[in-house]
């Protein structure tokens, strides 16, 4: 486990543990994780299935609260900041299952997210900005105006990514974002993440099994048996 101390970590996990319990048993998934994520950095988290990657992502993105430990954004405990406010203003998540609003078109999914998070583009309308983002990840206007249920898995995944990008947050979390994409599109998405981190100063955290994706990130974290460690990148 590595505890990288930086002067201004955007996201800091201190002693984070998480246990799932039901009537019969308790199952510890994360065990005392401490880590600081920085702005302008593209992170990937690797780990075998069931190692708790998605749980870690859920806690870090404010979707749930840890059983033990604290998570803070810009030095403020998320509990104090408010998980809803944190998710609304500072963190966005691309889910493995896409989790799109199925009664909307691709475009409406993106504009709805912008409305909810209160994002107003510097120039043009939300619709124009949403179309631009969708086009950037390979969805033309005709596809963008179709109901998401009529799109392929890969197209839905791209809509989910565009929706997260549209929120213009400080930290972008993604759970297997390129799993259903072809090689070219996947590379386009990776390039977008790198650009977000390096040119816009965002913190991008991606959970993946893909070594190819991990190789293109700035830092690779490995989650194994509830512990998080940083893996040195091969030069």
């Amino acid at each position, binding site marked *: 486990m590595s505890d990288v101390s930086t002067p201004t970590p955007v996201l800091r996990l201190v002693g984070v543990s998480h246990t799932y319990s039901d009537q019969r048993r308790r199952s510890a998934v994360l065990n005392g994780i401490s880590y600081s994520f920085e702005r302008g950095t593209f992170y990937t988290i690797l780990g075998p299935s069931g190692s708790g990657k998605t749980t870690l992502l859920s806690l870090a993105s404010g*979707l749930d609260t840890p059983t033990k430990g604290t998570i803070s954004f810009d030095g403020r405990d998320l509990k104090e900041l408010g998980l809803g406010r944190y998710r*609304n203003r500072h963190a966005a998540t691309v889910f493995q299952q896409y989790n799109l609003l199925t009664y909307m078109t691709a475009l409406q999914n993106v504009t709805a997210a912008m409305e909810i998070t209160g994002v107003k583009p510097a120039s043009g309308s939300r619709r124009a900005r949403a179309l631009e983002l969708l086009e950037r990840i390979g969805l033309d206007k005709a596809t963008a105006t179709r109901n998401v249920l009529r799109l392929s898995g890969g197209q839905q995944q791209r809509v989910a990514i565009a929706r997260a990008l549209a929120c213009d947050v400080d930290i972008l979390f993604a759970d297997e974002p390129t799993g259903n994409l072809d090689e070219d599109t996947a590379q386009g998405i990776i390039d977008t993440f790198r650009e977000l981190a390096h040119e816009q100063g965002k913190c991008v955290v991606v959970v993946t099994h893909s070594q190819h994706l991990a190789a293109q990130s700035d830092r690779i974290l490995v989650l194994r048996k509830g512990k998080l460690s940083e893996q040195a990148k091969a030069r």
Partner: protein
Amino acid sequence: MNFVKRAGLSLWARKSRTLITLATFLAISVMVLAGVLIDHATAHAEQSVKRSVGAEVDLAMDLSKLGAGSGSLQAPQIDAATVDKIGALPQVQKYTYSTSDRAFLAGGASLADGGPPAPMGPGGTVYQAVLNSSVLPDFRSGMFTLLSGAHITPADKDKKQVLIEERLAAKNHLKVGDKLTLTGNDEKTTATFTVGGIYRDPRAASETDPDYYISWANMVYGTFGGLDALDAGSGGLPQVSTATFILNDADAQNAFKNAAKQAAGSALDAFKLDVNSKAIQQMTGPLGSIRTTATLAMWLMGIAGAAVLALVANLAVKQRRKEYGVLLAMGEKKTKLVWQQVLEIAAVAILAVGLSSLIAPSLTQSAGQWLLGRDASAAKQKIDAWKPPPPGSTGLGEGIDPNAKPVANADPIDKITVALDPADLIAVGGVGLGIGLLATAIPATAVLRLSPRTILTKGK
């Protein structure tokens, strides 16, 4: 206000669910509204009947008090002046009182044919003194018809005037304005009367009055002045044995009874005031019947509909669990999610109630009319089928209840007019919306208590 847009999109995109919810809401609204409309229409019709018929209150001796105190079994009497005091009460529209005595046709006049053989002696009949013949129950019910001349009115009180049945008039070739001579109970005092009117009693001449056993055709109605003329030496205030008061408002019965007791004092001790609502009951019976049916149907359908609606809303919330999770994951406020749900339900409810306001009145008019027509027809058949007991019989031996005798000219109401009151529409809409919101709010609250991660990963 993005949740408003989302609500619209959700309703439009989930057309099947929206239509099912709308249909359920519509069914509930129409049924409940129909129940309310029938209830109001029947109540209105009943009120109209009460107003048109008015309430009839009869003053009659109280048999339970007969003989009390004095030990005498003589029928009590009350003087006319006391009854006039009661008649002057503000609740009274018109009134009459009566008393009777034996009298004999004189001057060559003879009884109508077909009656029993002179039960009161040759030419013997009954002189029924009345204040106002038009208020007599048989005239009011329409059983008696005035054929010519005029009724005996309070203005005729001191005159010597009679009202006779057409068969007695025909037998003696009498017409309005002719003279009829009668002898009093003492069989000596004689007076000559003017025939002021001729009426028709539909009963056979062989049918007899149960008190004196004279043919109905020979009954003579006359003024109190006439009775006084036949009763030489009686003097004093005229005494009456029965009286009938017609009230302005059927609902004023209790107020009238209290005021009458106050006005008459102890003079009323041996009497009772009975409300005769038989005509009203006969006319409004079918109304009550369909009101009961409609109310029962309204409750059954309302409860069943509410249960279905609750189920539909509950399922909808459960199916939208993931949507809630996604929206919460984006930081949407829980209150806005609730508002979105409320808006969706409200939009459907308002549309359903609006549609029901177009459908329910005509549907209720048709259905209510059909139900009422059926019940009124059955009631009318029952009335028409009633037959009086044979002459000389109380009817009890033949299984005929004399009290079940229908009131003539009081056919059951067979028409209602359904009118929609906006207040009813608002009430029904409010109840429907309340059910919908409650059915949505309970499962929604249960879901929204969870974290987005729990919502999104539940069951996976």
